[in-house]
């Protein structure tokens, strides 16, 4: 929150045409996909897991959506459903590998990160891009409705939906409990693996949905769609106060995290020429912010723990 205020003041003072309604709309437009991915990354991180594949899955869904619409020739709403189904399948693949085969989420999603992106590139032969989508579809990405960008409504609905899921249902309860102590949750009779699997499936389905707004915003579906979004989503969640070890985190925090990143990315491009730097700076700052938000809470504790390691700890059951 503090960070967001500082940013707003800083860019408000130094930026050109930063604090305008137009720019606000712009920021929202650009943050939608990352926002949606961050919102589903949150439950995954709450379970104590991680999903590195969402950005790549977004790319795969976008490409398959384009393929369905242009080459198969189905109407775009049906292709859109297809995109979400592909996302769900991709998320389901992660879920099966993680919960059935009990493989570490990190390595599973790292390989599907490469797999999904690779499939997208293979389908487009690396260069093909799908364009020329109908106006009715592009409206999702460029139109306005009720004074807000069309996709903002989608983000708003997603946000509300996820907030309700996490804060108002037993599922949200369960994944928090699992994140704090998977063993404890199992001893309480919670279906741990099923609940965790849901989180990865949800992340996949959302990647499929985000692929639509992404495609509609740019008007093209390319294989590199959503590259790097997984990092932005994780950063937003961690910036929003969620613990990377699971259990702690809230939708409100994540939304703030997304806002910080969105404002930052936009603000940096609007600095006067003397300070002007390119969009790359936002990537650097994203990485550094993520590191800082992880490292700062640890620094004071480090001095204490490093002296207290002499104690023999009870051996944990492997």
């Amino acid at each position: 929150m503090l960070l967001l205020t500082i940013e707003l003041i800083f860019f408000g003072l130094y930026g050109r045409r930063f604090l305008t309604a137009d720019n606000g709309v712009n920021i929202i437009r650009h943050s939608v996909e990352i926002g949606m991915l961050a919102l589903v990354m949150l439950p995954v991180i709450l379970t104590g897991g991680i999903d590195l594949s969402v950005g790549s899955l977004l790319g795969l869904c976008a490409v398959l959506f384009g393929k369905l619409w242009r080459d198969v020739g189905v109407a775009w709403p049906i292709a859109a459903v297809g995109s979400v189904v592909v996302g769900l399948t991709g998320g389901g693949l992660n879920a099966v590998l993680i919960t059935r085969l009990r493989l570490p989420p990190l390595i599973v999603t790292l390989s599907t990160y490469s797999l999904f992106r690779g499939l997208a590139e293979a389908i487009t032969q690396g260069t093909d891009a799908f364009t020329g989508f109908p106006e009715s579809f592009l409206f999702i990405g460029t139109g306005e409705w009720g004074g807000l960008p069309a996709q903002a409504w989608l983000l708003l609905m997603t946000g509300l939906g996820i907030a309700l899921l996490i804060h108002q249902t037993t599922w949200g309860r369960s994944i928090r409990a699992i994140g704090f102590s998977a063993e404890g949750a199992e001893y309480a009779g919670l279906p741990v693996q099923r609940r965790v699997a849901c989180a990865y499936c949800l992340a996949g389905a959302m990647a499929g949905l985000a692929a639509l707004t992404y495609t509609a915003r740019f008007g093209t579906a390319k294989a590199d769609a959503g590259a790097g979004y997984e990092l932005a989503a994780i950063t937003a969640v961690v910036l929003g106060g969620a613990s990377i070890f699971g259990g702690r985190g809230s939708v409100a925090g994540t939304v703030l995290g997304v806002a910080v990143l969105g404002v930052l990315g936009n603000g940096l491009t609007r600095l006067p020429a003397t300070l002007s730097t390119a969009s790359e700076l936002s990537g650097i700052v994203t990485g550094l912010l993520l590191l800082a938000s992880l490292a700062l809470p640890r620094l004071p504790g480090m001095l204490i723990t490093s002296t207290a390691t002499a104690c023999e700890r009870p051996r944990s059951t492997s």
Partner: protein
Amino acid sequence: MLKWSSRELTVAGVLVILWLGLAVFAPDFFSPQPLLSRLTSSAPKLLVGCGIALVILTRNIDISVGSLYAVASVAAGHASHSAPTPAVIVAVAIVTGLCGGVINGFLVATLRLPSIVVTLATMVTWRESLRLGQQGVFINLPDNSQWFSLSMVPGQWTVVLTALVILASLAWAQKNLAAGRHLHAVGSDPEAARLTGISPGRTTFSAFVLCGVLTGLAAALNLVQSPQIDPNTGRLLELEGVAAAVVAGFAVSGGRGRLFALLPATLLLVSISPALTYLGAKPYWDKAVHGAIILAAVMADGLGRPKQGSRSQAA
């Protein structure tokens, strides 16, 4: 004296089958000069694979190597303009790699942050810094940096042999130096390591630093091969490295794996994309194939692993 584990034999077996297939369907693959060139271009990958494998041995992961590789390349490239000797290129690349490794090591081992998030963050930070500083402009390298000022064929042999010598000495050290065994101990059970008097923090830190140094060296071996460098070099390198380590039998849960197995594993992986090309497939499938290979290798480990849940309850 080398004892071949079943994993090394499997990988070597698959490699031989692939090569036999290539020999039959695409005999061009084995004509000497392209083969040497291909080996030369694989040498850096072998070293990066070593670095990642060492980190995986301690139960961590480093996915920032691809970006670090690019940073080291660019730094060495710039340095070569003021002092155009191969020694400078190699030294600058290694020192840059070392710094990257120290940063990762500090964050992971000293601050005890999860390695995946740390190296994800450093991966993006290095890559974007490079884009910012270099804006995609290629750097021309001085002529005498090529092939260590040798002619091409001896130069290629130098590169290949350097990589092999380093792999061999690391594999030797892994087996015969106490430090090598400490990596296994820490990855196998950090708590037991602490009780034995091995510092998990220091060991993990060293693994990251070594990984950085190897990445820098790999960048140097790559630099001498071309007249100019692309600041976007090294993309996907972290995935190739992780794939090589996993295929070579390094367990992601730490403690298990032999560096020597990286040789057949890397050769297998670098043979796949030419094989695909020779056999008529498009190169766009590279990335997907890499992902699928990591998945297959991890799944083989996951399914083959004995159920261990009851081990602590028995007794």
